[in-house]
């Protein structure tokens, strides 16, 4: 069986395969990495490094985008 790790994404718990990158995580969520911004454990993950940063057990992610607002 594939090993999984436990993370939080936008406040909700989620299990993902161990060893994936943040870019993989975004794609797994159906998101285009180029259209979102990612915060990992309160630190911005620069878009250029999304494919290099590994998702680790216990990570807390905020993934945001632009929406309509005043």
């Amino acid at each position, binding site marked *: 069986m594939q090993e999984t790790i436990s993370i939080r994404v936008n*406040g909700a718990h989620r299990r993902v395969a161990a060893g994936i990158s943040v870019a993989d995580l975004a794609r797994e969520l159906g998101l285009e990495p180029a259209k979102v911004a990612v915060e990992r454990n309160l630190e*911005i993950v620069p878009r250029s490094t999304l494919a290099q940063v590994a998702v680790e057990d216990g990570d807390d992610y905020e993934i945001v985008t632009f929406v309509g607002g005043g």
Partner: protein
Amino acid sequence: MSDTWSVAGRTFTSRLIVGTGKYKSFEQNAAAVEASGAQIVTVAVRRVNISDPGQPMLTDFIDPKTVTYLPNTAGCFTAADAVRTLRLAREAGGWELVKLEVLGEAKTLYPDMRETLKATETLVAEGFKPMVYCVDDPIAARQLEEAGAVAIMPLGAPIGSGLGIQNRVTIRLIVEGAGVPVLVDAGVGTASDAAVAMELGCDGVLMNTAIAEAKDPIVMARAMKLAVESGRLAYLAGRMGQRRYADPSSPLAGLI
């Protein structure tokens, strides 16, 4: 006659900035932006919808390459939250020009100036160019400018109230004292309110609800475009003085 204004090194011909909230659809929103002639739109930063990631996005309808996105911190009540939001916005968009607003309470959405000033200082230190929503207080405006705000954006009336400019004296004092652009942000209800802001010498006006909640937002967007242009022209023309009594327009000489 070319009449432009600049903020943080970018030059614009339109003096109207519009929000992108409260519209019935993205299509209506895009059509209103088009009718308004705005070159800058404000946008919010929110969590992506993970349960339904295929939903249409604002960027599919309003192209960030042709219209400048101004990310805001609406909904933030502390300097820390606002700064965190804008760090994400900078990563999402890739630019430093942002709109800072730190609110004091939900009832009035009045800005918390202590937190606003603190956030301005942090943002400037991190290389942001913050346009800052604030109270219509010339002293607070000066303090923000000293802290590095690239534009001062006093409220005309509470956000979403549509009450129009409540204190023309303080807006004018801010305009006279500022060395950076001043834009009325919040409170505009109808075209004449926008014209008043421009006649007071503001560099621009930012609005959302006045257009989005009009019965016909697209027609109102055009009305606002014309009002901002007309108010600006009136300001540049220099209005006549006011008198307490009448002064006839027709000559008195030659009366029969």
